[in-house]
């Protein structure tokens, strides 16, 4: 009853073409953004920011990028960690080597270079599909792992291979308290999420979805597969690169190539699958699930253990985390293979009638 769009008439094409045509959606998203920007800084404490909110915001940005490639364009990619690494290292080089480089420009430059690398490693997608492509993208992952460990230029010839940034500032504001870092990342994520949502509603997004559903038929009706696939790789890698720069600069502060290893790629793919492929909202759900679950398990397991009178060792907690994580992934895929976003849209469907039975 509350979600019905009865009585919402559009009298101009602009109103019909907006991102959130249903007024309830508009209000809800505005409220959510307002809560995220204004409400959360008052409610959350330092640990919550550093351990949960900032990783969640950055990883959901990365998940949006991966979703565009895997969910909207159907190209399975296991090289997302490498693109994050390219974004991070190139942003670092631009930031450190050019005097007085603004932080935002450095991050966007990192995204730009990630885009170039993404296009290069996306070329095999023109010839190879499906699981073969997934394994081929692993070439990108491992090559980048090696390149950042071996080629000294990327790490500014640091003897240990580990790099660090500090003194982040934006237009004169230093970004070092958790709230400032959170707001900085949130701005990026919100902007890119809105841009991505617009992109996937447009012609290029429809081309991607056509390629995903049946690429031969898409080519037959005149969609150029090369353009569509490579543009998907480009946009996706740009977003992932910016997320990588944020992850390195804002969350880690100091990092090594192992921070962007294949585990990160799998983590991003999990977020997309669990959140829902082909859904921007789903990227956020998936990121929340994957970020919060290990921490939740880490806190909850000793508590559960103490309830039944068993002290759980840290190793046991770690093993149990793995087991529960695995079981939850499988359970999720069985219960709702289209992810949390599908649950969300089912919920919205039910809301149209609720509280009435029909």
């Amino acid at each position: 009853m509350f979600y019905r769009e009865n009585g919402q008439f559009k009298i101009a094409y602009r109103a019909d073409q907006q991102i959130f045509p249903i007024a309830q959606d508009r209000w809800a998203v505005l409220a959510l953004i307002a809560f995220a920007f204004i409400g959360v800084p008052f409610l959350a404490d330092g640990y919550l920011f550093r351990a949960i909110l900032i990783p969640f915001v950055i990883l959901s940005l990365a998940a949006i990028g991966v979703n565009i490639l895997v969910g909207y364009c159907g190209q399975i990619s296991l090289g997302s960690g490498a693109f994050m690494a390219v974004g991070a290292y190139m942003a670092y080089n631009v930031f450190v080597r050019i005097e007085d480089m603004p932080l935002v420009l450095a991050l966007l430059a990192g995204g730009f270079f990630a885009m170039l690398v993404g296009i290069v490693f996306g070329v095999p997608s023109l010839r190879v599909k499906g699981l073969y492509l997934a394994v081929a993208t692993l070439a990108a992952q491992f090559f980048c792992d090696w390149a950042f460990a071996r080629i000294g230029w990327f790490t500014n010839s640091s003897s240990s291979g580990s790099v660090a940034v500090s003194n982040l500032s934006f237009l004169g504001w230093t970004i070092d308290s958790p709230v400032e870092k959170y707001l900085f990342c949130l701005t990026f994520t919100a902007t890119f999420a809105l841009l991505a949502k617009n992109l996937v509603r447009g012609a290029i997004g429809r081309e991607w979805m056509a390629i995903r559903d049946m690429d031969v038929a898409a080519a037959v009706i005149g969609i150029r597969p090369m353009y569509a696939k490579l543009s998907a790789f480009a946009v996706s890698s740009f977003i992932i690169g910016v997320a990588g720069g944020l992850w390195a600069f804002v969350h880690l502060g100091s990092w090594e190539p192992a921070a962007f290893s294949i585990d990160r790629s799998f983590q991003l793919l999990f977020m997309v699958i669990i959140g829902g492929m082909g859904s921007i909202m789903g990227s956020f759900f998936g990121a929340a699930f994957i970020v919060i679950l290990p921490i939740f398990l880490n806190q909850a397991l000793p508590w559960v253990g103490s309830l039944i009178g068993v002290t759980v060792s840290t190793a046991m907690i770690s093993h149990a985390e793995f087991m529960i994580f695995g079981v939850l992934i499988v359970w999720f895929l069985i219960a709702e293979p289209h992810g949390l976003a599908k649950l969300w849209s089912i919920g919205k469907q039910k809301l149209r009638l609720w509280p009435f039975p029909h």
Partner: protein
Amino acid sequence: MKFRQIALGLALATAGLTGVVSTSVATAQEKVQFFPSLTGRTGPVAPNATQFANGYADYMKLVNARGGINGVMTLVEECETAYATDRGVECYERLKGKHGGATVFQPLSTGITFALTEKIPADKIPMITSGYGRSDSADGDIFKWNFPLIGHYWVAGDTVLQHIANKEGGWDKLKGKKIAVAYHDSPFGKELLPIMEERAKKHGFQLQLLPIPAPGVEQKAIWLQVRQQRPDYVVLQTWGVMTPTAIREAIAVGYPREKMFGTWWSGAEPDLKDVGAAAKGYSAVMMQHGAEPQSDVVKQILSMVYDKGQGVGPRNEVGQVLYMRGVVGAMLSVEGARTAQAKFGKGKPVTPEQARWGYENLNLTQADLDALGFKDVMRPVATTCSDHMGSAWARVHTWDGTKFVWASGWLQADKTLIDPMVKASAEKYAAEKKMARRSKEDCQS
């Protein structure tokens, strides 16, 4: 129907989550000295790092059994990192404010050390990185909060090369020889290289660098290269399961184990006991202590902790190399806190900043160490504002097929070579971070 079940489940889970997370964030003010322990009990370094964690925890229990630090009891809480930097950082964030504030962190991982070096000045918590981490953090004028007590990798590299030079008959005999370094391809592994390159330049021997990508399961190509190049010696800078794999592959290509030397994280029982007699002759340089089952402190741990059933790990591992490293690490943590208590007030817990002062003014004489039970295990440690390492002694032990035996006397790293390197590297870091050297007044605080 199915949707309702799923929705209900999710709602309950979220409720549970918020409940649990909020209860964990609230802490009570307790009169204990809190020592967090970042462990590696799972993952690629589990066999080795577990012993360290056990030794650390057991020594803290011993301290409590002896009456605490002037009456203040120690409290250890572990957090599993599995040698992953991001998990280590998350553990740090979670533990740093608990139980009245973490006194000191010992991350046991060079990767986590690099990450935390950026965070601890703002949080004002000291970090002890005995035998690992940044070698340039020995320069206390720049790295105020880092303490690579009793050794870092440049000490390891220097002393292992000294031992090799002694075997050859002098530094000049090394000219023209070839020394291969097989290292973990990460900041941990690469940290050894500067001292090796410095010595290679100085004495004219050739270095062959062989990076081993983690986790090091497939090392055949590397050891085939060793066979091809036939270096006179191989130095291993590996950790965890990479070490036994390296030794096995060396056996498989027939490289003599007598010419292989590990650094102090590459020469312990978990690395060698499964290889057994085939690894006879393999040596490793040790950061002062080796396997010390007959030492006084081990006897005390056995009688005051294990006999009361409070031991954390298996009894037969008490006294092994990495167990002792945990014991030594715990001892240094406690003694720093005790030194701080002497200045800031005995009988009450010290804050992390006060503890930092303690680590900076540590003065453990041989008599102090003997009284603590470390006779013949350790040499005196004395830190100052500029020198956060405090001691640069090492010895080499060799595997005889079933246990380790000492193969060298006490070796001391060459300060004339290492100090300028440390200073230069620290200055480079300070220039990047745009920070100045600490002033004299700052040293007294």
